[in-house]
């Protein structure tokens, strides 16, 4: 398959463009997504190609954006709505949790809700406590939603296309750090010329190893890959499992990896208590208990809001160094 290098942002843009060409029920709307092409250029030039009926700028009201997306989806369209920062999803929380996630159940399966809410979290960009939050864990208690968080351009494109074609509501969480930080593994990468899809609900083993399993998601996959390189030099072979889809979670891939390595580190860009890492750890402790040779380690942010000062934010975030230190202790 012929491939070329694309950035994370370019891959997302291409996914939107291809799906809009393929299916004219796909529409895009949100704050600044049309004329400006999105504040991060993910929706760049879509207005030019598809016009103002399919690419719409909305007022600043997250409730209205998600509410309108639900209505559009119920009536036969496939809306891809953008919420500029994950933090602002909180304003539309009731729309997501009370309405979108439950619609299929409420109607006894009579309606489907093919909607995608795209958003991004900006931890790593010094945006402070209200523009950096990764709130995915707080939505895992809302069965009916799917939550996807790609870590590379390849995954970003394939997963966004699958999300748009999915008949249930998908919250598609992008990483603002992967938009801009060239040093990350997930900033740029090979993407096939030909069309492809990546199924939702499937984790990906990004690197194979025998000594320890590192489960990561979104930006922390880049940290885990960097850590795995450093560990290799020390003779430790780390397996990196990228969740890719958070809900439903691919427990099988996690369990199979832990059965092989007997050691688990989970790296997540949010606070520890009640995080995704808690779900991963608790599941392993219930279903692969006999395989654990060391305590499970959760690497998260400290229990506080994200600091704005970049030096503090660096210390706040999960880093390759923190992963290396945790793994080094664990394999002893």
């Amino acid at each position, binding site marked *: 398959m012929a491939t070329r290098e694309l950035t994370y942002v370019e891959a997302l843009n291409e996914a939107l463009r291809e799906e809009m060409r393929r299916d004219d029920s796909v529409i895009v709307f949100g704050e600044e997504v049309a004329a400006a092409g999105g504040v991060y250029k993910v929706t760049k030039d879509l207005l030019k190609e598809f016009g103002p009926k399919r690419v719409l700028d909305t007022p600043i009201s997250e409730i209205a954006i998600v509410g309108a997306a639900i209505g559009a989806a119920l009536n036969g369209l496939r809306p891809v709505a953008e919420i500029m920062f994950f933090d602002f999803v909180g304003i539309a*929380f*009731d729309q997501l949790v009370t309405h979108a996630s439950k619609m299929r159940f409420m109607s006894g399966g009579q309606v489907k809700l093919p909607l995608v809410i795209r958003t991004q979290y900006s931890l790593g960009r010094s945006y402070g406590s209200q523009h950096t939050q990764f709130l995915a864990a*707080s939505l895992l*208690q809302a069965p009916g939603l799917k939550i996807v968080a790609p870590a590379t351009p390849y995954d970003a494109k394939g997963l966004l296309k699958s999300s748009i074609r999915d008949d249930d509501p998908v919250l598609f969480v992008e990483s603002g750090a992967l938009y801009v930080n060239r040093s990350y593994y997930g900033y740029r990468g090979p993407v096939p010329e030909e069309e492809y899809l990546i199924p939702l609900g499937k984790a990906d083993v990004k690197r194979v190893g025998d000594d320890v399993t590192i489960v990561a998601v979104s930006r922390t996959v880049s940290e885990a890959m960097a850590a795995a390189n450093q560990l290799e030099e020390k003779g430790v072979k780390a397996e990196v499992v990228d969740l890719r889809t958070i809900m439903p979670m691919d427990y099988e891939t996690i369990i199979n990896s832990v059965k092989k390595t007997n050691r688990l580190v989970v790296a997540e860009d949010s606070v520890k208590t009640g995080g995704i890492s808690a779900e991963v750890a608790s599941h392993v402790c*219930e279903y692969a208990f006999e395989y654990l040779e060391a305590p499970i380690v959760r690497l998260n942010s400290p229990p506080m809001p994200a600091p704005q000062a970049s030096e503090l934010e660096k210390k706040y975030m999960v880093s390759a160094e923190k992963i290396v230190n945790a793994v080094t202790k664990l394999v002893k």
Partner: protein
Amino acid sequence: MPQLNMAQALNLALREEMSRDERVVVLGEDVGRRGGVFLITEGLYELFGPERVIDTPLSEAGIIGVAAGMAMNGLRPVAEIQFADFIFGGFDQIVSNVAKIRYRTGGQFSVPLTIRAPVGGGVKGGMFHSQSPEAYFIHTPGLKVVTPSTPSDAKGLLISSIRDDDPVLFFEPKRIYRTFREEVPEGDYTVPLGVARVAREGSDVSLITYAATVHDCLRAAEKAEVEGISCEVVDLRTLLPFDKDAVERTVKKTGRPVIVHEAPKMCGFGAELAAFIAERLLFDLEAPVLRVTGYDTPFPFVHEHHYMPNESRILNAIRKAASF
């Protein structure tokens, strides 16, 4: 000491705190003239008048936003969200504002706000009046999350919450508002936040739980006793911050923890507890950490008694843990 049910104990706590401290105000939908849909605020309007007992419009974001402003300006509001299911309308206010004010102002402001909300199933409320949303909030530093299981704890914990200088979410298990009475201390009675209680001593299996399921666990523990399995029941009372020492004590004692709650399993509070145990206490375990919870679906109207962790599901987990 009077014999009170939980609803009466909560009402007593509010009366006493409002009498003691005139900064305490109550606001919410129908909390004034009506006395609240569950009558928890009954009689407060007559006693303290419309300036301190305020009926609000139907807007959860408005209620929590106003209460946050009151709290930052010297009052100690107790806001009611009529059903915890509706709290999502105020999610942004709670998570992005209320929880972060102390941090964002470098400690110049605190938010001494209590948000009360009835939680849980068992009352034929269907999917929008039965949920237990505690896990949505334990992931937010800056909040405290409290949930009582007895009338006396309800009083003591509510008073502590009102007196606390930080925001507290106070989740009241509505199906046990009026199911039983017990002696509730009068006057200045507080139960400290962040401290669990052992509701039943035992040595073979630890049932770690909170809110209404404490009572399901106690009943299951009695049945297990007949089968020769001795169960300890730990009632966490506060979920954020939860009492890590109490969890450690009981897990070290039995080595067989079973976690029980009504909310869905995936990333529920039980996930945090199990992960904590897997991190800190792995080598004290004699069996996997089991979770008996609601299922990963919306809360069903018809099948709620299968959905909730009933006695027989808890008993099955006890047997599984004991025989591992």
